[in-house]
């Protein structure tokens, strides 16, 4: 029992660490896409560790394993990629700016991700810029 409880504690600590790192990434990274990356990966692994640790603890010390922990975990693992995909798509379609080149690897103009790459997108994927003043 001690080994299982220790494993549960370890899972909880690992999950919490990932959640803290995800928060750090969202606070510090320079563009929406990078923040989304930190958020999607970090929170999925983090909540997975926390819920697995909780489930292990509950099945050791309480009235046996039940389906609820599995349900929470499965729901989160199913919806997290969908949510981040929808967010990333929205950022791309609204033309959210990439990080300035100094913050990324240096890229020549015209390369994927370069500044005027946006104009080569198919029309459906081109950013829809809101024009406030009509000319």
């Amino acid at each position: 029992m001690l080994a299982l409880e220790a494993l549960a504690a370890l899972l909880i600590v690992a999950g919490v660490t990932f959640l803290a790192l995800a928060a750090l990434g969202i606070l510090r990274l320079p563009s929406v896409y990078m923040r989304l990356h930190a958020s999607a990966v970090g929170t999925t692994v983090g909540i997975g560790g926390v819920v697995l640790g909780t489930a292990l603890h509950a099945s050791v010390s309480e009235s046996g394993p039940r389906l609820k922990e599995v349900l929470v975990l499965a729901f989160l693992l199913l919806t997290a990629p969908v949510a981040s995909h929808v967010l990333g798509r929205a950022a791309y379609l609204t033309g959210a700016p990439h990080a300035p080149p100094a913050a990324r690897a240096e890229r020549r103009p015209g390369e994927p991700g370069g500044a005027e790459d946006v104009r080569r997108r198919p029309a459906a994927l081109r950013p829809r810029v809101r024009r406030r003043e009509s000319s």
Partner: protein
Amino acid sequence: MPDGRSLVDAAATGGLVVVGLAALALLYRVVRGPTVLDRLVAIDAITVNIIAFVALFGVGFETAAFESRVYLDVALVVAVIAFLATAAVARYAVRPHPDDAER
């Protein structure tokens, strides 16, 4: 030699503090923005932190009447609402603006 129970309790209590502080720190990104989607990413991460907080609270503060998995109902509901809210607001953000003359 500590028994397993106190190990998990210590991990859960420490985790509560860290997760709570992380959620508070993410509020800075919600306020700062600069776009709706930046805020939405931060809010999504905050709700995941809240789910983790609820799960850890169940472990750290369980009693005979409320064992830890009782709190997972709350976590499940928060997860469902958070997913629907994120998807809905993200869809709203890409909708063409009515003032846009080209569309």
